[in-house]
């Protein structure tokens, strides 16, 4: 009985140690992205370069509402698919000529027949052929640790084990080549913070508001 008690205590100790080890090793990376005027920069994809990637299949949706794509920027893991429902009461025609994925969904309303699979990393710029101002981006990464910053230019990547990492940032309107979009970081026991300051172009998309109707073009 004494031997049983010692064995059970030993087992309990190992479990407690293992649990604590997980708590110690996995931390959050708190991300902040600003532009050249120190203003929050939403729609920035920030991801961690990994040697081992956990393949996660997710349901991803890029919607069309009030003649706009929602969201403007979507980050997905390589091999995942995106569904493009059209919740407008009009038809759209979605296309992309980007090298990472060329596709076209001809004029449709409601749900298209099948989602589009993105199996190459890179940038995919999409648009609607009917409504010229409609544009959006998909950024495909070979990582399972990534976020897209919110309106406040912030995001959190959770569950990072201790170690050295390269963290990369991308925004659809990055200006020029001389922008610091890669940082090395050491993840430790506590949550880590990282800040990117990116220079971006002024325009997000082309003109949508009505033009003076002397032109008589809708």
């Amino acid at each position, binding site marked *: 009985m004494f031997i049983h008690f010692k064995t059970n205590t030993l087992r309990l100790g190992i479990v407690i140690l293992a649990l604590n080890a997980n708590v110690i090793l996995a931390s959050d990376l708190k991300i902040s992205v600003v532009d050249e005027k120190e203003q929050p920069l939403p729609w920035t994809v920030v991801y961690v370069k990994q040697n081992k990637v956990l393949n996660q299949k997710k349901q991803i949706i890029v919607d069309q509402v009030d003649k706009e794509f929602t969201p403007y920027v979507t980050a997905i893991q390589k091999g995942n698919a995106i569904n493009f429902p059209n919740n407008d009461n009009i038809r759209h025609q979605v296309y992309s000529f980007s090298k990472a994925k060329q596709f076209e969904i001809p*004029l449709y309303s409601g749900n298209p027949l099948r989602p589009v699979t993105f199996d190459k990393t890179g940038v995919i710029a999409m648009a609607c*052929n009917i409504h010229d101002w409609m544009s959006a981006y998909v950024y495909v990464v070979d990582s399972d640790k990534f976020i897209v910053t919110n309106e406040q230019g912030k995001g959190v990547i959770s569950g990072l084990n201790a170690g050295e990492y390269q963290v990369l940032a991308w925004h659809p309107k990055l200006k020029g080549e001389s922008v610091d979009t890669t940082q090395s970081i050491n993840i430790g026991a506590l949550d880590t913070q990282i800040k990117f300051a990116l220079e971006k172009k002024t325009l997000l998309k082309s003109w949508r508001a*009505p033009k*003076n109707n002397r032109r008589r*073009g809708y």
Partner: protein
Amino acid sequence: MLNNSFYLCVFILLSLPTQANNSQWVEWIAAAQVSVTNIDNLNISAFNNDKVADNRLAISTSFGRFYQISSTSRFHLALDLSTDKHRDTELLDETAYGINIGFRHKFGVGFKVPYMQIGLNSTSHDVKADSWSRNISNASFELGQHFSERLSLAAKLNYSSSNGSSGPIVIEDISGNPFDQNHWQATVYVDYMLEQNWLLTLNLGYRDGDILSACDKNNVDIVWEKENITAITKDDIFGGCVYSLKASAVMYGANISYALSNHTALDLAINAYSGQADVLDYKGKNLMLVFNYSY
């Protein structure tokens, strides 16, 4: 005939159901515009001592629908209704109603693919001074292209025809209907986005054909002596005569738009023309503040 066409279009727009085929009636058009314009030469006079300046408040609306023919082509059918009020020259106040039809075709898929647009419209202008009431029809052809997110260009050719009523004959053997007119105009538009919410549009055009001018009794003799008047009649509005003659003009302008939202914009525009008949010059400019809405 215009009345019948108007009601026919209302019937077509409201009665055809949306179908779930490749070509179908799709989105609705609902647009409105409110503008205040300062016009420095309302009567398009060639004489500085005769020019009448005034301010005009105009409200216009369009209601219609697009019909998607294919992924690259669509046409629209819309009804237009507008009203103009002048601060001083009340007799020029008018209500206008009409139809407009347009066909647009993109030469492929893509943002920078050129497009062409054909437009036809016919409007009945019911002016307080009855003699000035007339029907105006336009046919236009436009080619355009986006060159980048900031820059786009368009070139438009427009033919306009106006039909009015004949007034009393004031000069023997000269028509008493100066409101029957035709002219051509070719215009180039440059749109440039300065910032996300700011758009600058420049336009430069050339107009050739009939112009309508009104002047007082003192200046009519000068016009008759120097120019080849094609029609002239007594004028109820500016106190002399209203006449037509052939002239050509350079039209130019600039418009700055501020996007209040995806559906609304505020515009400030200045437009000017510099025209010449055989001898006399016709110049004018107007300054507009416009609120635009589109569904």
